[in-house]
């Protein structure tokens, strides 16, 4: 398959999943969309290499998360703007629960949020979350447990319901 065709097919097939993931991680739809687009542009720059990876989508997802984190790192202006104007408005969603979930995710620590999103939204097993975030599996389990407890409080879920990783 020519490079353009394989890239276009990959883009069409994975862009929505990657946007969902970045939106959940950043809590900001515009930021998520731009980080995903930028990550795809970088993927195209080296597509002959990236396409050979076992999981090109994981590569783009990691790059997109790094772009978003890099922006947070340099986000003093955004922090000040947040203080001035309040948080960015949630995107119009068909479901109030989804909006509430994104708002709750934004209130838990970033490492817990990333672990929760990769596990529950992307569907990665704990071992793959550990590999993608560069921490031991025990750390991922702890982050998932703490993140779920925090979300349970914020979303009034039943914390006694059996949970597993």
């Amino acid at each position, binding site marked *: 398959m020519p490079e353009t065709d394989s890239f276009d097919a990959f883009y069409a097939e994975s862009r929505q999943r990657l946007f969902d993931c970045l939106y959940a991680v950043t809590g900001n*739809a*515009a930021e998520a969309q731009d980080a995903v687009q930028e990550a795809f*542009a970088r*993927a*195209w720059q080296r597509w002959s290499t990236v396409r050979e990876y076992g999981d090109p989508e994981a590569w783009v997802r990691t790059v997109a998360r790094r772009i978003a984190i890099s922006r947070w790192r340099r986000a*003093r202006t955004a922090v000040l703007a947040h203080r001035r104007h309040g948080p960015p408005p949630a995107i119009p969603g068909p479901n109030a629960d989804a909006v509430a979930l994104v708002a709750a995710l934004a209130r838990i620590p*970033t*490492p817990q949020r990333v672990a929760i999103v990769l596990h529950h*939204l992307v569907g990665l097993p704990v071992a793959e979350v550990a590999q993608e975030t560069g921490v031991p599996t025990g750390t991922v389990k702890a982050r998932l447990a703490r993140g779920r407890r925090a979300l349970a409080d914020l979303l009034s879920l039943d914390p006694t319901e*059996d949970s597993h990783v």
Partner: protein
Amino acid sequence: MSEQLTVLFEQLRGSQPPTPFAPPDQVRRRGRQRNHRQALAAGSAVLAVAGLGTGWAVGAASDPTPPPVSPAPPQSLTPAPSLTHAPPTTVNSSRLLKPEDFAAIDGVEPADLDDQGPNGPEWPWMTAMTYCPDYRAADYPTITKRHDARGLSYSKDTWISWEIVESYPDAVANMADVRRAIATCPTYQFPDGPEIQQTVVAEQFAGEDSLLVRVKRGSARTDYMVVVRVGALVATLAYMDGPEPDARAMADAMAARLR
């Protein structure tokens, strides 16, 4: 609760982005523009240096091979006063690390830094200072006098690093500002993030002055900041995840690129 979360996340799937997804040809064009910008940046550096007549040897813009690195002269631990107050120096792309400089990591790929301001990348310590309650801009007088700066990020799979090279009218004073920043803010915390500790673990081991700073991010990760000064240029490398000997070894490559 896990199942309840799974149901909630199901409802998040398929969220509409603020604008429709760009068509694939537009994404590919953005990728090509990134390549073009990188080539253009290398070319404009050549023109700028030629215009200033500084005589630095740099590669032609159309030549993708990195310029040869001059053999590093014997290291001197004594600052060279004649160079520290040199005329304003433009930072050209040949001063930045090349992938082959990362001896411990094969296949590093360079890319533009994200979110550079109109004056190039910000002072490398600004993020730390932003979250340090004891930071006072007036305590770091050289920052506003910076003449030029340029940076790149470097990545391999999930590993990422970045370098920023800056030129200052008084680079010795800038190194003093860096030391003061670390001494003033040995610990700080991002909102909702772990406590970050930064400690100077080595000094004056490369170039005309240098620092190796260990940055512990909670218990999860230890990164290193490598700072090297040669003449009017100060290079700062954020080397993620260590190990310390690998980070320290980068200083010689940084110094060689600055000479």
